């Protein structure tokens, strides 16, 4: 594996500091099928997910975050009536909650996705 050590990245016209690219990329993401037998469709920097109950999933980082002040972006559900929310975060894992937008009851959405932006340990 090789490492490029450069201060700036340019397309020939516009130049940005490398830090913008490194700090601006998602440090982890995961797409889970939450219906039936729960399965991970694809991911980055995730070692496992934990099915805690209806609509309640924890995601475990392979490479921990430096602190718990990171951003969780969630999306998911099954049709227009389901939503997702952040539940909690720690350096080693984050947790989301999927629900029915009308009743607010927990719901096992078939697509439960999240992405993490922040600083790696």
């Amino acid at each position, binding site marked *: 594996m090789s490492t490029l050590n450069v201060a700036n990245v340019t397309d020939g016209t516009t130049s940005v500091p490398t830090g913008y690219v490194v700090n601006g990329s998602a440090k982890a993401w995961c797409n889970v099928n939450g219906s039936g037998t729960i*399965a991970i469709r*694809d991911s980055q920097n995730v070692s496992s997910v934990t099915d805690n109950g209806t609509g309640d999933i924890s995601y475990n980082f392979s490479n921990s975050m430096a602190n718990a002040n990171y951003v969780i972006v969630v999306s998911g559900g099954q049709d227009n009536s389901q939503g997702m929310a952040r539940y909690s975060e720690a350096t080693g894992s984050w947790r989301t909650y999927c629900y029915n937008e009308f009743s607010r009851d927990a719901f096992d959405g078939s697509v439960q996705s999240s992405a993490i932006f922040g600083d790696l340990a």
Partner: protein
Amino acid sequence: MIAHLWDRLADAKARLDPVQSKYRVLFENPADPEAPASVLVPDPNFMAAALAGNVLPPIDTYIRDQSVPDGQPKEHPYAEPVGAMTEEEAIEYLVMKDISPSIWRDYNGNRTIMKIVPVELIPSDRSFRNAWKINQAEQEIAA
């Protein structure tokens, strides 16, 4: 110099096919007996990295890092990677990494609170998901 774990994981994802594990880990939290059983699902990219070797750090680095305060340097991202594991060894690694030691190491009660099971034993009908408990009837009795 050892590459950062995140870079090694990104490299492994680019070159290895994901591996869907045939195992799941069922566990209950003894501190919250009313809560339903949880099911740990191994990540296919993580499993591929574990089976290939030279990507993941030693498990004891993760365990030591659990007591490192937020914002302080952690050991596991720059630890020397370990070699290839079998699928069973990778599941044991995940248990120690992603399940609380209060469940896999410290519990002394009589209930079975953790089981590694084939994925086929996990119900696909989630109608009563919040009532799931580990079946105590199948507990093996030591001779």
